[in-house]
């Protein structure tokens, strides 16, 4: 699958995680933009219209749950697939009370890079098929 046309937005407050993910995904041929907090994540999602978003949950100010809720409630951003990458295990319960579509994939830290790439490939293929059929 050609990766060079795909853009991924990485949202995480931990600079080392952002460096790690950005470097890895760029090595895999993606264009990467990043944000280190929720408001910047939302702003970059609107400005950059990425093909996929990776999202941390525990962030200062606005949590990843609030970010995901805003993304899902925005008709323009709603279709963008989201992979949550977090050390928190209980966030799914919190999401169910907000009535929003859960993330397309959920991964625990520390990351399994093979699994991450598999999730990204599958989600991008699914998005491409959906766009073709619409």
């Amino acid at each position, binding site marked *: 699958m050609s990766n060079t046309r795909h853009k991924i937005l990485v949202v995480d407050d*931990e600079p080392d995680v952002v460096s*790690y993910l950005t470097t890895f995904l760029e090595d895999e041929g993606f264009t990467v933009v990043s944000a280190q907090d929720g408001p910047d994540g939302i702003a970059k999602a609107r400005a950059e219209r990425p093909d996929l978003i990776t999202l941390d949950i525990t962030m200062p100010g606005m949590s990843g749950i609030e970010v995901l809720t805003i993304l899902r409630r925005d008709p323009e951003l709603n279709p963008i697939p989201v992979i949550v990458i977090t050390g928190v295990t209980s966030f799914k319960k919190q999401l169910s009370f907000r009535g929003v579509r859960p993330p397309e994939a959920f991964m625990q830290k*520390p990351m399994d890079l093979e699994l991450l790439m598999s999730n990204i490939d599958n989600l991008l293929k699914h998005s491409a098929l959906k766009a073709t059929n619409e």
Partner: protein
Amino acid sequence: MDDSQKQLLDLLTSKDELVGSIAHDLKGLLSGIEGGVYLVNSGLKKDNQSRVDQGFDMVKRNVDRIRKTVSSILYYVKKREFDWIEVEITALFESVGKVLADRAAHLGVDLRITADDGVFEADEFAVHSLLANIADYALESCHTAKIKPSPAVALSSKIDQTDLVIEILADGFVIEDETQKLVFEPGYAPRGVDRSHLGLFVARGLIDLHGGSLTITPSPERGTTLFRVVMSLSKPFDLADDADENTEDMLEREWDR
């Protein structure tokens, strides 16, 4: 459910929360180390020295953070008697400054250290740990709050008659009332400012074990928070050498408070 059962349940719940918080923090730190290893390996393959250097820095930084977390955990669980010795104040502050220098630089917060000459009686390792933990919390809070363009944390000491007064001024962070009530509790997991909260719980316990006190004073109009630790220059009389309680028992008592 009677009161004692409720207390026991609260205690068990707090400990579960604490273990959960530690696990979450360690996952983040392991991610940092893995990231560093990835950068080093890929940098070597691509002959990119800058990436290799960045990777090594990441590994070192996260190993240091894991060391601090493990130290805090060990203090909590280990039976440890205090080793009361004469501690040189200037040397102590220099050592704390060295430990935190890289962290401060990484967070973009200026770290300033000034200390009076003199000595006081304390467990050197414990006092070093509690100062480093409070200062680290201040550094990370200033970095996260982003209320000032040039945040700074200043550590200072002065001798006030028979007391040693240590002040850690976070210039660029104002602690909220709600946070003040929670920040020294073992299960507290502040959003964003994480990874040092266990250290604050242990820090307060260690201050108490030295017969000292800790006050926190926010100044919203100045954008600062002052952490003030007061300890006697001499080992307090009621903390006798042959006291029955060891460190763990006193921290347990602190937990139950």
